[in-house]
Every structure is written in structure tokens, then in C-alpha cells.
């Protein structure tokens, strides 16, 4: 059994990227099989990208969402929630465990929260996917 699951993180340029960067600055370690792709806003992530990640062997996808801090407006939280719900449905249809997609609002200074989320997600994925 592997110690670390392969996790794709969608992070946002202005809000969660600074937190992910600061986690490194503070040497808050997390598994090195966690990779970040930057997008402008978490509500612009396409479900197809997430499904593609599972097809390519990722164990989990984590959306480091803008939450109420989104620079593009308050509707971000709801829209990100919608796309996650939509993806969950599509995952169920493909017999994928919906819990392999996780979302949490990560503010620009939430480095510890990010690392905590990733570590717990990693543990879940190792347990459930026998990664």
C-alpha cells in the first residue's frame, strides 16, 4: 500500500494559491503526489476535467475553492457547489466514489487548513482506494 495518494488540486490564482505557496514557505509538509493546477476562479472548473483526472489515474481531486473571498463575486460559492454536485452525479453514474472529489474553501492565508484537508483526504483515499 502506498503512503500517499495521487491528488490533483484545483487552486485559484488570487485566493488559494497564496495559501498553498505559504504552506511550502512554512514547510508544512504534505504528500509530494499532490499537484496543483491554477485557475482564476473555482467556479470555472469543468466537471470534464475532474473526470479526466480519474481516468488518468488520480485517486482524488481537491478543489481549493474561493468561498466568500472570491474576487469575482459572491455567486462563486453557489456555482462551485453546483459544479461539484454535477460532478458527483456523473461520478456515481460511472461507479466512482463521490468522496474522491472533495472541496473546501481555502482563503489566501489558510495554509494550515489546506495542509490539514490534504492530509485527511490522503488518508481517506489510501484507506478507500487501496492506492
Amino acid at each position, binding site marked *: 500500500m502506498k503512503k*500517499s495518494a495521487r491528488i490533483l488540486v484545483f487552486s485559484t490564482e488570487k485566493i488559494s494559491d497564496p495559501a498553498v*505557496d505559504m504552506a511550502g514557505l512554512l514547510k508544512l509538509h504534505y504528500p509530494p503526489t499532490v499537484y496543483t493546477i491554477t485557475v482564476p476562479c473555482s467556479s470555472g472548473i469543468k466537471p470534464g476535467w475532474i473526470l479526466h483526472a480519474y481516468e488518468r489515474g488520480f485517486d482524488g481531486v481537491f478543489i481549493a475553492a474561493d468561498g466568500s473571498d472570491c474576487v469575482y463575486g459572491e455567486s462563486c460559492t453557489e456555482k462551485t457547489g453546483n459544479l461539484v454536485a454535477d460532478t458527483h452525479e456523473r461520478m456515481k453514474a460511472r461507479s466512482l466514489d463521490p468522496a474522491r472529489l472533495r472541496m473546501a474553501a481555502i482563503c489566501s492565508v489558510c495554509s494550515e487548513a489546506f495542509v490539514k484537508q490534504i492530509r485527511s483526504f490522503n488518508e481517506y483515499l489510501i484507506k478507500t482506494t487501496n492506492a
Partner: protein
Amino acid sequence: MKERIGVYICHCGGNISDYVDVEKVRQAVEHEKGVALAKTTLFACSDANQNDMVEDIRTHNLDGVIVASCSPKLHLTTFRNVTERGELNKYTYVHTNIREQASWAHSNDKEGATDKAIRLVKAAIAKSRFAEPLYPNLFEAEKTIAVIGAGIAGMKAAAALADKQTEVLLIEKEHRVGGHTATWGTLAMTEESGSTLTERIYHDLLRRENVTIMTGTEVISSKGSIGNFTLKVRKRPTKDGDPVETAEFTVGSVVVATGFDSYQPKEGELGFAQSDNVITLPEFRHLIDRAEGKELVYNGRKIRHIAYIYCVGSRQTNGENTYCSRFCCTSAIHASILVKKKFAKINNYHLNRGIRTYGKQELLYAESLAMGDLYLQWGEETPPAVVMEGKGATITLRDILSSNRELELEADLVVLVTGMVPRADNSVGTLFKLPRGRDRFFNEVHMKLRPVETVIDGVTIAGSCQGPKNITESVNSALSAATKSFSLISKGTLETEPIVAEVNSDICSWCGKCAEACPFDAILQKEVGGKTVAMVNNSVCKGCGMCAPVCPPDAINLINYSSEEIMSMIDALA
């Protein structure tokens, strides 16, 4: 599709190469499709490397450039500019972060960090293949600048900005200006009192027509971003029954100068709060500034022997304040000289952990030694013990300077040389989402390359809100922050990223979902070849991408973030 990409992998001195095998990364990517050149470099940001990159772009006829180095927050602009100097469109440049997101995040796992760096660079190459030339949009920036906090740093920043003929709003929560400095008597090195100094700067500001000073005023919300921040402020009532007034201002950039709190020792820490004869350095300063007569009297008792215990609340081995507070050695020695000059019979005992009167402040240390002050040095493992006896204190310590001998001394007054801590009230930091470092002070983007800047574009930090500083250092940082804040908006126009949504009209058959999702009303209907399709108004589109996931036939992509690009990055990372 890029076919001649140049890839540069940075050692960052050792910040990257100590944990990531950069040569292995280079070898892993040099034969990737589209890569014409792959190099490692000691410092990608150095002038020499930048010039080499410009030369490489020309001689190798590169059509895309990638640097794998630190966070793009630090050097994206640097390398976009290098790309432009090589006469490539700057948006063909792709940056990847193998420092904060590989070497530092996985410094406990070199193999893992190296493998991750390889995949991150491959993903950047995948993205680079699609990177097309783009042209930024311009918008008008507000030229007023807000300075939050009117201590010595905030006031000097405001004066420096006023010199640049820009409008300045100086916003202070307290009902008076001057911060900590205004409460201090004679200052070290210059012999002027703190209040005289701050009054002088305040009167200078009052004479300036382009400075608006708002005291008793708090910033309660901030909206917008660089060039156009809307700050809402609330005037604090001076007495009960006064109306609470609020107002809104638009500013182009913000200097945060919210200062520090003095460390407050815990009850029982070196006898603090257990006896009236144990006081902090700020309390001692107030005592000697006000004391008159031939003898120093405190609590009805004549004071002859004063023990100063250094590094209280700083350089903690077991606490969270591991930093040195910089100003306190000088401040304590200066206070001890003042008290001895004022009251001849005083004996000073400095119980220190190594004196740090750096630079010219060393003169004060020499003066204190010449006056006969005694210096005893303790180590972090064996702090002094303070026992209150009668009206005085007995202090025991192991003195490093006399072979760790245990010494005992009696003092009438114990002064705890307390350092600086971050403001307990972090409301301004929370408003602007300013990151704080391990020391809990506000974080600069880079202490050497981008001091006073924060990751929040348009917000700079001045003075001791960034970390402990003496007055000279606070003023230096304030002048830097003022200049930086001004230079950000001085052109009057700012560039926005040309990242907008694009509709594939072959696939679109207008359902209106994208228009519903757009928070900026940037999507219109258009007739193309006899059918109605969606069209993006580029001057209104902000590039959030909210329209893209809701499109049923997947006809919308954000430039630079198309499905093709993202999926090819996922392939590279998998």
C-alpha cells in the same frame, strides 16, 4: 502549437536544489515534445541569466519560454519582461513553481520533491505548447492612496506620498496621531523626545493640502483590487451619544502601517504581576520620563539598584516569539543611561543574552560601560530566577561571562526588557487578507527582492506591522512602501490580464445558461450564419470562467485555461 520551447530550471541558490535534483529534472524534460533547450541555472532571476535567456530566445529561435523556480507571485512579471526583451509576446511565457510547491513543501522527501518537480515542469511544457500571444487591456487607476495607521511609519509614508503630488488619506483608529513613538520621552541616538518628533511630522502633514488626516476612524470594509479599492470607514464617536458616521473612498493602493503591541509578560513570568517592583521596559520609560527630584522614587521607595532582564518575550526557546525584537537592547541601555544621568546614585545591572546594539547604537553600549554599568550574561537554558523579598528582589543567575558561576544580586526594581509582538487586533490584516509569517507579523513577498510588498496587489506594508523595527528602520520601510505604492499606480493606467472567455460558435446553439452564470453581463447574443449564438464582450469579461462549466455542449473556453490545455496538463501530471 509551440515547437521551440526553452526551459530553465532554477537552483534558487540551494532553496530548490538542496531538495530537488535539478539536473535530473532537466534530463527528464529535455527530450519532451516541443522542447528546444533545457538548462539549469543557479539563479534564474539574476541579471546574467536574464541576459542569457534573451540571447537564447534569439539564437535558438525560441517560440516559448518556461522558468521553473519560485512562486509566480515573485517572478512571473520578471520573466514575462525577459520574454518581451527577447521580442516574444509576454503571454507566451509560462511559469511553474517548484520551490514553494515542491522543494519547500516536500523538503522531507527529496525523491518525492524531484519527481513532483519533473511532473510540474512537464505540465508547464504542456501548457506552453498552447500559449498564444495576447495583448493586455488597460484601465484607469485611482490616484489617491490610503495609509492606514498614523504612527511614525504611517505619517512618514503619508508625507512621502504627498511629495509625489498624489492625494493621500491618512486613517488612524485612535483619536490622536503618533502611535507608540508619541508616548516616549527622549529617543536613543537623536536625543529628541518622541512626542516632539511626531508633532513635527504631524504639523508638516497639516500644512499639506493633499493630505486628509482622519483620526478616530476605522476601515471597516474593502472591496475591489489594485487601482480601485473602495474603502468604507467608520468614525468612532469621541463621547457617548455622538453619531456613528461612515464614509466611502476609492483609492488606487493602500499602505498598511498598523504597528505593534508591546509584549505583556504573563503573571509570574520573572516575578511580573506578583510584585509592584517588577515592571516592563515601556513602564520604566514612562517612570523615568516623569520622575523628578534628586532620587528616583517608585511606590514610595527610593530606587538605587536596577536590574534589567533582557529578551523577555523575544528569542523564546519555548514560546512562539522566536525572533529578536531588535530595538530592545538599545532601548534598555539608553533608558539606563538616562536614569543614571538623571539620578546619580543609580546602579544598573544588565542581565542579558548577548548585547545587540548593532551599528551606531554601539556608542550607547560603550557609554553605558564607561558609566560603570554591570553586564551579566545568561544562557537560554538557565534564565534568571526572581524572588521577591521585602520591598526588593533577589535575582539569581548563572553568568556565562564568569565561567557560569551562580551569582546573586539584589535589586530595588526589576525592569523586564520586553519586545514587540504583532497587534492583537488583526482587523486590517483580515480586511485585506494579508498573509502573516511564522512570527505572526505581516509577510513581505520577499525580504530582499520585494520588501514592503504583499501578495495582495496594491497593498504594501510599512513599519513594525511587518516585524520588529526601531524608528529608523520603520521610517526606512515607510519610505519604501510609499514609493512602491505610488509606483504601482503612478502611470494612471493599469493592465488587466487579457484572459477572457471564447465561444466556439460552431458548437453553440444559444441556451442562455452562460449569460445567466456571468456576474458581469459580458455575454450577448449574436447571429452567425443564420443561428443565434453567444458572444463575449471582451471589454466587460473579467476572465473568471464561470460561464464555461455550465455550457451543455462545452462550447466555451477561457483563454489560457481551455479544456485542451488543462487536460494536457493533467496528462502530464498523471
